[in-house]
C-alpha cells in the first residue's frame, strides 16, 4: 500500500514570489516523516506540492520533480485528481462538510468518486472510523451532523474521511495545532497505528510531537523574511534531536534561534 516519495529540485511559487527553493529529499514508505521549522519557511507549501494541492491556490506554480515510486507527479498527462486520490491530506483546522452527517462525511470521498453500494459503504465507513479511533464514540449517532462533534473528534473524523479512500500516502498539516493535549495524544497514537499501512508526512510546530511520533525529521529554514524557504537537513529523528549535523538545526531545536 505505502509508497516511497522522491523529491528532487523542487521549487514552488505564489505568482512571482518564490516560496520554497530547490528541495530534494526522500520520504520512506511505512514511516512517519516530520517537517519542523519556523513559520513562513515553506513547510506547508512543500507538503501541498506533494499532492498537487499547491496549484489550487491562485498563482500557485511548481518546478521540479516528485516521484511516487518512480512515477513523476508533475509529469505530462498526470491527472491531479488521481494524484490526490493516492496522496490524502488532513488539514490544520478540522473541516468536516457541514451539510453532511458523520456517516456521509466519511463516505464523501468514496461517494464523490462513484462508489454507491450501501453495504460496501457501510463496511468502509466502519473500518475507517475504527481506524481513526472514533467508532466507539460515534457509532450511535452516525446520522447526526459532523459539525456537532468536539474539535478533537472532528479532526479524527477528517482523518477517517482521508483514510476511507485508501490513499498510499497521508499528508498532515499541523493536525493537532487546534486541539487540546488529550485529543493530541489520541491523534498521535493514531499516527503510530496508521504508519503500519501508510506513508505519513506531518508538519508540526511542536518539537516534542515531532520527537514522539516521527521516524525521520526534516528541518526547514529561511534566510530572511521574504526569502524562499530551504531544506536545511533531513535525518533520523533521534540524530536531529541529539546530534544534528548543522548548527542552525541545533539552534532552532534548543530554542537559541533568532
Amino acid at each position, binding site marked *: 500500500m505505502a509508497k516511497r516519495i522522491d523529491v528532487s529540485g523542487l521549487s514552488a511559487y505564489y505568482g512571482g514570489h518564490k516560496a520554497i527553493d530547490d528541495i530534494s529529499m526522500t520520504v520512506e514508505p511505512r514511516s512517519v516523516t516530520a517537517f519542523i521549522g519556523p513559520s513562513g519557511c515553506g513547510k506547508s507549501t512543500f507538503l501541498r506540492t506533494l*499532492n498537487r*494541492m499547491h496549484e*489550487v491556490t*491562485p498563482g500557485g506554480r511548481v518546478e521540479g520533480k516528485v516521484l511516487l515510486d518512480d512515477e513523476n507527479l508533475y509529469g505530462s498527462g498526470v491527472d491531479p*485528481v*488521481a*494524484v*490526490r*486520490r*493516492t496522496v*490524502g*491530506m488532513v*488539514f490544520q*483546522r478540522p*473541516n468536516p*462538510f*457541514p*451539510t453532511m452527517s458523520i456517516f456521509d462525511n466519511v463516505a*464523501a*470521498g468514496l*461517494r*464523490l*468518486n462513484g462508489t454507491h453500494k450501501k453495504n460496501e459503504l457501510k463496511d468502509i465507513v466502519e473500518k475507517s472510523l475504527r481506524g481513526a479511533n472514533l467508532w466507539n464514540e460515534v457509532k450511535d449517532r452516525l446520522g*447526526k*451532523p459532523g*459539525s*456537532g462533534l468536539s474539535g478533537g473528534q472532528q479532526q479524527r473524523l*477528517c482523518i477517517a*474521511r*482521508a483514510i476511507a*479512500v485508501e*490513499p498510499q500516502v497521508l499528508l498532515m498539516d499541523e493536525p493537532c495545532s487546534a486541539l487540546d493535549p488529550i485529543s493530541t495524544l489520541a491523534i498521535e497514537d493514531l499516527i503510530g497505528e496508521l504508519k503500519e499501512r501508510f506513508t505519513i508526512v506531518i508538519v508540526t510546530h511542536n518539537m516534542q510531537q515531532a520527537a514522539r511520533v516521527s521516524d525521520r525529521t526534516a528541518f526547514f529554514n529561511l534566510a530572511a523574511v521574504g526569502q524562499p524557504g530551504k531544506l536545511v537537513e533531513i535525518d533520523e529523528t533521534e540524530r536531529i534531536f541529539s546530534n544534528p549535523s548543522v548548527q542552525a538545526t541545533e539552534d532552532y531545536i534548543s530554542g537559541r534561534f533568532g
Partner: protein
Amino acid sequence: MSDVMTDRRPRAEHPGGTPLPVSLRQARLPRWTPAALALVSAALGTGIGLVGGLDSRIQWGLIAALLFIGGTFALAAGVEGARQAKDRLATSLVWIAFLLAVVPLASLLWETVARGTTVLDGFFLSHSMGTLPDALPGGGIYHAIIGTLEQVGLATLIAAPLGLLTAVYLVEYGRGRLAKVVTFFVDVMTGIPSIVAGLFILSVWILILGFGPSGFAGSMALAILMMPVVVRSTEEMLKLVPNELREASLALGVPKWRTILKVVLPTSIGGITTGVMLAIARITGETAPVLLLVWGAKTINGNPFEGAQQSLPLYVFQQWQQGSDASYDRAWSAALVLIAFVMILNLVARGIARWKAPKTGR
C-alpha cells in the same frame, strides 16, 4: 477589609490629582423612563398642535419627536452623567428613525388591506374581465394571475440557471480578463431601467424579428432584469463557503466540478434560494416591460407564447387608469393580491433558507 487591616499605602489617585470614584455604582434612570417620556412627549406634541392650531399631523409628530429627544437627553444628563446622556440620545434617534421607516410601510399595508378587501372574493379570483365594461362592478383577476405566474415562471426558468452558472463561473473558475468583463457587465445590467429592458426586447423580438406580443416576450425582458440580481446574490453566497471545504474535497481526490456540485452548492443552497426568490419577488412587480410586450388582455389566455396576456401589476395600472369606482376597487384588490403573492414568496424563501442551513445540532 480596611478597618481590619491597616492599609498604609496612599490611596490610588488619578494622574490629574482627582481621586478615583469610590463606588462603581451610579445613579440610573428606571427602566420605564423612555416609554413614559415617549408617552408624555406624544401627549405634549398633540396638545401643542391642538392649542397652537397646527393643521399638519407631521408637525405634531416632529414636535413630539424633538421633545422626546431633548427630554431624554436632559433627564439623563441630569441624573446619569454625560456619557449615559449621549448613549440615550443615540438610542432615541435610532428609535425615531425606526418609526419613520415603519410608519409608511404600516400605512401602505393598512390602506391596501382596507380598500383591497371590498371586492376580493372567490369570484374575483376565479374570473377574468371578459367583455365587462370597465365602469361596471364585477369581473376579476384570474387572467392576470395566470399571466403573472406564467411570465414570472418563464423568466425564472431563463434567468435562474444562467445567473447561477455565471456566478459559479465567476467565483470558482473566473480568473483574468474574461471574469472582469463579465463582472462589469453584470454591474451594468443591474442598473438597467426596466423600461429599457422592455424597449430592447420590443425592438429585437417584435419590431425586427416580427413576433407579436406574448407573455414570453415579457418573460425575456423580466429575465434581463432578474439575471444580474441572481448573479450578485449567488456570488456572495458562494464566496461565503469556506475555502477549507473546497480543499478538503479536492484533497480526497474529488474532481473540481463534483466538489462544486456536491460540497459548495449544498453548503450555500439556502442563501442561493433566498436570493433567487427575492429576485422573483422583484420582477413580479414590474409593469413597464409587461406594458410594452404583453399588452394586457381582458380575457384568459393560458398560452404564454401566443397573443396578449395580462399580469397583476399591469392590471392594477389599467384599472386605475379607467377611473371608475368599480375599477378603483378592482385595482386595490389586485394590488393586495400582488403584495400577498410577493410576501408568500419571501416567507417561502426564509423557510427554505432555514430548512437548508448547515446543521450544527449535537
